[in-house]
């Protein structure tokens, strides 16, 4: 029985290897790239194929080396001033050209503002399937990539496959996988590729780039997250975070209100975290938020609304005024010696 | 892609400029509640172009009432059977409560089980109001939602349109029907009526509860089947303390509405915490078993105009009329709790009067006076007149009526039916004595009877 061939279908046998995009800005590699490399190592082994790291930037030879140390069999490095700072059109065009030339079976890109920006510029010309925001990856018995992502509010996990189109592309949510540790004894080929993009061909220009230290809440063992219930006053939550030696995080509402930087947002459109302890302060518990923290070992909720959904997703809950509960909790934890005594100055930054 | 082959699509020939809707409509109705939609429907059926302006996301979104809709007038205007109804009222029960006693009377006439079911149904306002507004739209009215009327437009004393909270938000029309509900900020702001005096306003709180763990909870608890439902009214100390008002429990299809309504002036003094009073009512030994295992899914509160006939404002102005709760048309005397049927009746008469005036090309108050006259000879004002005196009288006798009498009746009943070894003569004698003592002897009883002869 044959299926009517879809537009853009290709001979899938001509495609092989797993590619991971390594995202670099001004010499700094985004952690999600190492997370992807870690996960993709397993996929490459299941398929019996190579794991290839794609590095695009300027002065990025050492990144290629680090990618090999962290699990890549090979690294392709496109090194040119046209690639720094990042722009969608040169990255998209370079990557697309490499894909067309080398025929990877699978391409994985971190779901950052960069990855989600240019992935489509690769997928469209290749008529490739692109699944966005995945939280799980696997290969089936036929060697097909199974890209899994939450659907319908998070209580369903949809598996997306591309039977006849290549490459099979996916963007992956930061913080879901664990970063691969570098092994300095690992060896692999690092190949410099020619840039196919010229500055004259570009259609955009970065006039200014202002980036500070970004918080990485995905690595934290303990998190105190603030929500709408804090009503702009983060004092109690910060103190609690300080006492618990926890990282501060936030719901979408708190970020939209401007109380906390977006890098600390937990949830469907933010980060996925899996700390040992997650304390939700003044957070209602909308599914889009819960999706980002449901893998926490222990969840504590403080909210004055007994019907708030967060209590369904918490191990311990207090129905009460966070402005009373948080300080009281800090006091009790310190009294009982369950946490360290107060520092002279709290360290938690906005 | 085949970019070169694509023909350009030109939008130049399309006219999408914004028309001017000033005086495009004959009438603007402020509020798509029961009074507003009924007025709109009536006017539309009489060939008028009507604009209904509703502040909620959809009609009924912001509307609250006790729970039972009486439909005789609606039945003349729409097909009530195809409306979203919950249950028809097959039983009316009246309970007198002390803190731990209940004495009740229940009525379940067989004829209520047959259509038209005494024109008494429980409804959910979100569903019902939306349906009724749709009927007005079907008849030709225009409905715009999420738009709040903030003021009236005037030329001299004549009302010539409305102002809303939207940009470019004024629209002129010869007639304005004010159906804003109890919180009638526009009518008050435009000096068409005074702010309600505290003693003329009641506070109503209501919860809707569901029974998550049980199928057929309503049928079992209230002993009904099919579409039949029940209306339970309570008054006395165990319901709202010594406040003037009472409690209610109504059955919807698979939820129960439980609530209280009592005078705002009492709220300030004896029952300052409506939510707490409602919780206490729900825990009363007579009420709690009905609600066991139920979970609250909705909580609402509203103010209810209860000034009676005396507090009805001037209903007719040059270019405008007042209907429904805005016109103070609510009856609450403990036995009867009615507002929605009066809202519909007033909307109907107002709609007719506006259509008549439009026919004659006149917008002055005299031309619209037919509305007031029709309302005065209808059950609306006649019922309010009938119970006018009740409120004052009850104020004077509140302690007797809400505390002492329910206690005396309960004690008398308990005494009368005491099962010990004394003869029934003794029980009857004690019961009678207790009851008479509460009301002040035979003379007192007679006086009470005379004072309240008009109650029923």
């Amino acid at each position: 029985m044959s299926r009517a061939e879809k537009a853009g279908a290709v001979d899938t046998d001509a495609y092989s290897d797993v590619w991971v995009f390594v995202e670099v800005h001004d010499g700094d590699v985004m952690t999600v790239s190492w997370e992807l490399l870690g996960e993709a190592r397993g996929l490459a082994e299941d398929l019996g194929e190579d794991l290839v790291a794609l590095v695009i930037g300027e002065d990025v030879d050492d990144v290629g080396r680090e990618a090999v140390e962290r699990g890549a069999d090979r690294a392709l490095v496109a090194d040119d001033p046209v690639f720094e700072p990042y722009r969608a059109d040169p990255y998209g065009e370079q990557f697309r050209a490499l894909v067309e030339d080398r025929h990877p079976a699978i391409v994985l890109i971190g779901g950052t503002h960069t990855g989600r920006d240019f992935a489509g510029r690769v997928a469209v010309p290749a008529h490739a399937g692109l699944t966005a925001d995945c939280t799980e990856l696997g290969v089936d018995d036929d060697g097909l990539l199974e890209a899994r992502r939450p659907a319908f509010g998070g209580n369903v996990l949809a598996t997306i496959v591309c039977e006849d189109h290549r490459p099979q592309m996916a963007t992956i949510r930061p913080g879901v996988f664990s970063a691969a540790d570098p092994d300095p004894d690992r060896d692999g080929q690092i190949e410099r590729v020619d840039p196919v993009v010229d500055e004259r061909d570009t259609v955009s220009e970065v006039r200014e780039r202002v980036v500070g230290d970004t918080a990485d809440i995905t690595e934290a063992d303990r998190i105190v997250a603030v929500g709408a219930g804090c009503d702009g006053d983060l004092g109690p939550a910060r103190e609690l975070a300080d006492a618990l030696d926890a990282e501060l995080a936030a719901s979408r509402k708190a970020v939209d209100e401007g109380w906390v930087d977006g890098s600390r947002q937990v949830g469907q459109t933010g980060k996925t975290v899996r700390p040992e302890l997650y304390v939700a302060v003044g957070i209602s518990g909308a599914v889009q938020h819960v999706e980002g923290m449901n893998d926490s070992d222990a969840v504590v909720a403080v909210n004055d609304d007994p019907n708030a959904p967060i209590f369904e997703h918490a191990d311990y809950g207090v129905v009460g005024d966070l402005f009373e509960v948080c300080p009281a909790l800090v006091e009790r934890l310190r009294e009982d010696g369950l946490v360290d005594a107060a520092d002279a100055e709290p360290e938690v930054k906005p | 892609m085949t970019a070169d082959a694509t023909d350009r699509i030109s939008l130049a020939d399309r006219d999408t400029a914004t028309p001017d809707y000033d005086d495009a409509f004959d009438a603007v109705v402020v509020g798509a509640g029961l009074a507003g939609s009924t007025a709109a429907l009536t006017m539309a059926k009489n060939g008028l172009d009507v604009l209904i302006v509703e502040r909620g996301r959809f009609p009924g979104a912001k509307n609250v009432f006790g729970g039972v809709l009486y439909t005789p007038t609606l039945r003349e205007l729409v097909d009530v059977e195809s409306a979203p109804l919950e249950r028809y009222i097959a039983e009316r029960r009246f309970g007198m409560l002390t803190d731990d006693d209940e004495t009740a009377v229940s009525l379940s006439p067989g004829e209520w089980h047959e259509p038209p079911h005494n024109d008494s149904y429980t409804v959910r306002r979100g569903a019902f109001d939306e349906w009724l507004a749709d009927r007005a739209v079907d008849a030709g009215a225009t409905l715009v939602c999420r738009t709040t009327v903030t003021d009236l437009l005037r030329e001299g004393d004549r009302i010539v349109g409305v102002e809303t909270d939207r940009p470019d938000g004024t629209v002129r029309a010869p007639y304005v029907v004010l159906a804003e509900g109890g919180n009638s900020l526009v009518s008050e702001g435009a000096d068409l009526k005074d702010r309600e005096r505290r003693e003329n306003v009641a506070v109503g709180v209501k919860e809707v509860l569901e029974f998550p763990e049980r199928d057929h909870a309503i049928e079992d608890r209230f002993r009904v089947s099919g579409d039949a439902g029940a209306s339970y009214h309570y008054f006395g100390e165990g319901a709202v303390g010594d406040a003037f008002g009472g409690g209610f429990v109504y059955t919807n299809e698979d939820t129960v509405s439980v609530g209280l309504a009592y005078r705002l002036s009492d709220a300030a003094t004896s029952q300052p915490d409506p939510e707490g009073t409602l919780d206490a009512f729900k825990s009363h030994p007579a009420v709690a078993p009905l609600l066991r295992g139920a979970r609250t899914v909705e909580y609402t509160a509203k103010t209810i105009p209860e000034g009676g006939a005396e507090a009805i404002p001037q209903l007719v102005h040059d270019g405008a009329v007042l209907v429904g709760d805005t016109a103070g048309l609510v009856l609450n005397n403990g036995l009867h709790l009615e507002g929605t049927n009066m809202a519909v009746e007033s909307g109907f008469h107002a709609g007719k009067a506006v259509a008549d005036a439009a026919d004659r090309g006149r917008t002055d108050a005299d031309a619209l006076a037919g509305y007031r006259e029709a309302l005065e000879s209808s059950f609306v004002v006649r019922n309010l007149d009938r119970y006018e005196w009740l409120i004052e009288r009850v104020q004077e006798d509140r302690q007797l009526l809400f505390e002492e009498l329910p206690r005396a009746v309960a004690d008398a009943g308990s005494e009368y039916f005491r099962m010990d070894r004394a003869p029934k003569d003794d029980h009857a004698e004690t019961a009678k004595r207790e009851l008479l003592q509460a009301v002040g002897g035979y003379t007192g009883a007679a006086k009470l009877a005379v004072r309240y002869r008009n109650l029923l």
Partner: protein
Amino acid sequence: MTDDPTIVVGVKQVPDDDEVRIDPDTGHLDRASAPAVLNPPDRDALEAALGLRDAAGGTVVAVTMGPPTATDVLEEAVAMGCDDAALITDRAFAGSDTWPTSLTLAAAAESLGADVFVCGEETTDSSTGQVPPGIAAHLGWAQLTYVEGLEPEFDDDRLVARRDVEGGYEIVAADLPVVVAVAYGEFEPRPAGLHRKLYAETEFEPLELSADEIGLDDEEVGIDASPTEVGGMETVEPVERERETVDTAEELADALADAGVVG
């Protein structure tokens, strides 16, 4: 030099997340019960487009690829201030994933002579955010995503944007024509004027365009052109939580100590 620009805004009808009940038993959204509304991030897109028109003149046209019921969102767009709107509707579009969806919108943008195509950052129902880059790729246009602010430089055929990036922002200038994806919550959507809203809801009729009318063959769209397929859906087991409620902070501290979470 771009005089009188044509600004096209892509909008979508989605289930209403706000009105969706959270099923108290499972704690999950009950999407089936939700009415259909304009994708909330699209309001930001509409405001951004109308803001461009305020600054640089031109025409704003809203488009949506959807069934006939999607005209509701076009009415909302016109009520807000769009000059016109088009419904791109065709049986052939059924089953489209982001590849043919972005192709369809790209074809519409071309047909309408767009200089700028504005979208919301993502939809609340599929939240892939991949359609705007896909449109730019199909057309070979520049793109600006996660846009928090726009400044037209149409005399130089450019559009400048403030772009949200991890840890900060960028100021990026793109050549026209350009696809813009607007960050959710960064623009203050303007309220619809009363008379405009009345017009949009009672008299306005969107232009209806089929696949053919925007230059597409049936094989290029719909399920036949969708590389991705849903291989399976599995219900996720809700994470088992203790759901222990305590009354005071003190009790909470004790509970946490007992569980070994602290101390």
